[in-house]
């Protein structure tokens, strides 16, 4: 029998022998691979950016939906940047990077949504300024 089973690298053709990757750093490829990746990323980014700017100045869709559409386009474009420029993938070699990104996203979400929520609540429950002045007299 061969010892093929115990060799962790022989068949993959997918991973190089480095096992683990830093963000922005994929298996060694020809320059053409990187240029193609950059072209795809740029193409997606241009489409999404142009869509954002056109949408903001138009009445093509229902006006109250525009902010939501803009935020969706922005998140999509961040995803494009992460995948094509920062080379975050779902492969097992990227677990550490993905976990760090997930935690960072959680913190960002808590800070932004939490601040907006708490401050909106505070300002709703705040006494009108005039009334406050009266009480202080």
């Amino acid at each position, binding site marked *: 029998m061969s010892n093929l089973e115990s060799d962790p690298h022989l068949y993959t053709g997918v991973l190089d022998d480095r096992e683990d990757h830093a963000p922005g750093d994929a298996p060694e*490829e020809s320059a053409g691979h990187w240029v193609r990746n*950059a072209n795809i990323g740029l193409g997606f980014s241009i489409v999404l950016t142009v869509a954002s700017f056109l949408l903001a100045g138009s009445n093509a869709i229902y006006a109250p939906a525009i902010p939501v559409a803009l935020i969706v386009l922005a998140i999509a474009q961040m995803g494009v940047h992460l995948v094509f420029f920062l080379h975050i993938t779902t492969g097992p070699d990227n677990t550490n990077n993905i976990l760090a990104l997930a935690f960072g996203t959680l913190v*960002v979400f808590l800070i932004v949504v939490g601040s907006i929520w708490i401050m909106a609540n505070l300002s709703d429950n705040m006494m009108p300024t005039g009334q406050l002045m009266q009480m202080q007299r």
Partner: protein
Amino acid sequence: MTYTGLPASVEAIRRVREDPHRLGHRAHGPEEPVAGAGHGETGPARKRIIVGYGFWIYLLSDIVLFSCFFAAFAVLRGATAGGPTISQIVDIPRVAIETTALLLSSYTCMLSFAATNARSRLWTQIFLLITGFLGLVFVLLELQEFIELAARGITPQVSGMLTSFFGLVGLHGLHVTLGGLWLATMLAQVQVKGFRPEIVHRLICFNLFWHALDIVWIGIFTIVYLLGSLT
């Protein structure tokens, strides 16, 4: 090895097809740990991985810092204190040019990294120079915007909204400026020292930094400028 009745090569091809990423077949299990990957008892991971991962952690902390400024802007958006509102200070055509410059600089930055991988010093330098030039265009346009606003009497101390506006946009501009200085030192290092491992590590980190700045700018032009122009 378990005997399944198939020749070893057929069995191997079947395994690769079914599990191309080898999930569940990593070196944590009974197999030999792989040296340099930071797994098992093989010692720390290689320098390149640690450098890139550490810089990734820094970038995420930087994005958390930006998120505080975003939160401040979101909260103070209506706090104009009788001063101008956000829709009166945004200038969409200029923002479109700034966005184009930064997006293209991200692209050329990536091309410079492709050239680094191909170990072409000339093209690395050329694309880094274009990246720096586009970054400079961005910073100058932003400075021009701030100067024009200041000439109209619109300064950070006028209202809470303007404080958070100048804070957020200015912080990003500061990052791009510092990134430009870093880029200049990288040009010199590549020229003098060539593609030594530590120089390539720094180029990887610089790429990550520049792309992260572009991601933050996506948030700024959407939330501050485009949403600001709606009201």
